[in-house]
């Protein structure tokens, strides 16, 4: 099966007054059709930057320095701006963080959905647009009457589902959801995640879920990518990640999770995430790593493939040269 998404060595920097911050340092990923990938990491680890870079939505002072984003065989970075406009939503859709605040408060939901279709297909008949909108709303479990409503008439979970409906209008190949449920409570969160799962099946898209809730990842994704200070630390199948994490950071992350059987044990990760402007030499995790060696303080570890289709960036697992 040909991968639907291939990210090759993507690099993003922000040019700030205090210097150049490398928010994403050469990240590579592949995703097969229908696959669900979870992108986890602390705030500032580059999760959202990676999503925005894939959409080519990095704004100055940020810049994509290098790399390729290949969706369905076409490199998005080689497209002209006009072509990229067409590709967004029809090939790759992005449901931003706090998407529910991104709805226009003064136009009806239906009009906003119509806009999305019109922008890609100027000749579409009114009736077919109407039909597609209703279909999209039905697939996220919303009543047809929602299209006549304004954003303020909907609850948080409903607004989030409207955003998903807009995201799937043009049946994209890849859907990126950036913390889709961080402002919702558990029951609504489950409903939204189940909705994403269902529409994904319907249109056969691949999903990238960005978040820091490992519990949600365990319930939802097939593959987990752990990010730290703009680098991918480990990419593994969800079961391998939870039962046998390899990278020391991934290990610490899994260990810090609250479970039913370890009541009252709180195990945080000592230390703080480094500032992107002042990264330590070598592996960015070395000051917090219990297993740090001399080489970790000088050389940046490269992503190494391990058996079982997993990759790890750590000197502990580096190929012996």
């Amino acid at each position, binding site marked *: 099966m040909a991968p639907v998404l291939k990210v090759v060595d993507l690099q993003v920097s922000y040019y700030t007054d205090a210097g150049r911050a490398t928010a994403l340092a050469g990240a590579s990923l592949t995703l097969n059709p229908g696959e669900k990938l979870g992108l986890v990491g602390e705030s500032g680890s580059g999760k959202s930057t990676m999503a925005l870079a894939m959409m080519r939505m990095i704004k100055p002072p940020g810049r994509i320095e290098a790399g390729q984003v290949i969706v369905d065989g076409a490199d998005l970075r080689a497209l002209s701006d006009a072509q990229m406009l067409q590709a967004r939503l029809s090939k790759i859709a992005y449901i931003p963080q706090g998407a529910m605040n991104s709805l226009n408060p003064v136009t009806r939901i239906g009009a906003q959905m119509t806009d999305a279709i019109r922008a890609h297909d100027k000749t579409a008949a009114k009736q077919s647009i109407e039909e597609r909108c209703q279909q999209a709303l039905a697939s996220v479990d919303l009543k047809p009457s929602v299209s006549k409503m304004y954003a303020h008439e909907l609850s948080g979970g409903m607004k989030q589902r409207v955003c998903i409906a807009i995201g799937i209008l043009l049946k994209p190949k890849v859907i990126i959801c950036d913390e889709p449920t961080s402002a919702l409570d558990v029951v609504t969160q*489950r409903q939204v995640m189940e909705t994403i799962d269902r529409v994904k099946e319907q249109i056969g898209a691949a999903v990238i879920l960005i978040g820091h809730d490992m519990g*949600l990842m365990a319930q939802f994704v097939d593959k987990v990518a752990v990010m730290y200070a703009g680098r991918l630390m480990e990419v593994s199948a969800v079961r391998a990640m939870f039962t046998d994490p390899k990278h020391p950071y991934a290990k610490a992350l899994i260990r810090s999770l*609250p479970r039913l059987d370890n009541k009252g044990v709180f195990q945080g990760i000592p230390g703080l995430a480094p500032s992107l402007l002042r990264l330590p030499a070598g592996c960015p995790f070395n000051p917090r790593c219990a297993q740090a060696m001399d080489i970790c303080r000088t050389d940046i570890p490269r992503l190494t493939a391990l058996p079982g289709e997993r990759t790890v960036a750590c000197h502990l697992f580096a190929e012996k040269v």
Partner: protein
Amino acid sequence: MAHLLEFRNVTKVYTRGLLSKISTTALADLSLTLDDDKPTILTVAGESGSGKTTLAMLLLGFIAPTAGQILYKGQDISKLRGPDRMTFRREVQAVFQDPFAVFNPFYTVDHLLTVPISYFKLAKSKKEVRSMMNETLKAVGLHPDDVLGKFPHQLSGGQRQRINVARALVLRPKLLVADEPVSMVDASLRASILETLRGLQRDYGVSIIYITHDLTTAYHIAKSIIVLYRGSVMEAGDVDTIIKHPQHPYTRLLIDSIPWPDLDRRWGETEIKAKESELSDHGAGCKFLARCPFAFASCSAPPPLFRLGDYHATSCYQHRANPGLPAEDLTRVLPM
């Protein structure tokens, strides 16, 4: 035995509309007692609109109850005046949800901590202020040199939230109301903030009311739990019993929806479909009636609490064979 805090049949109703009053019951007939001599951590759980935050606001005296009384050390908090009021203000402290919004960006951390000390005249000299600040910052796991003199924007979310806890702690409170203190910080920092809160209870004898929708953290930190839904108590008791053997359909739905970081415990094992509450219906019967798959005729009358065990009570007619528990005696099923 002196009671630290007592809720006596507290009800809060919000009304809107000028001519035709539309009313929403945010909290219905809640009775609760916390003892002075046994510091504990009590969780109040529920989804948005369940009355959790109303409870916190009532407790802090920001709003007045529609019916019933709230007593602090035996005195009605709405009638406290003068020195008594100052004592109440000092001894009951709060930590709120959003560590990014509660700070004034123009003031340094020092200012934030010295204002309460000087307002309540807790220190006699500058040196004493300094040592109090250092001591409290250490108590919440921060290095004074790392944070003093800094502005809020120079600190991480976890540091800010710990400074919030430190600000409350510097006043030597008896009761801390923590309204979703970890929902906005990174998962890796949650553990250390929860550990800080538990240390306060253990080492400083502070009782904590932990308000949350996250039952995972509630399970790890609290001893007892009250599950609210639209202002009514659905289930209450010992946190272990309730999380592991929930009896009320609503509690079961809540617990079933927790994304456990456990591959062998999947979502959606119960028969209740995850669905948002429809805000419109508000009959006289069980508040959960519209969403409950087990509803039967009796449910159109409000269910009282039934006592299932020493530390377990639920408000559901499925358990009507058990002895009833008067709403005033709710505290009896809460281990302290």
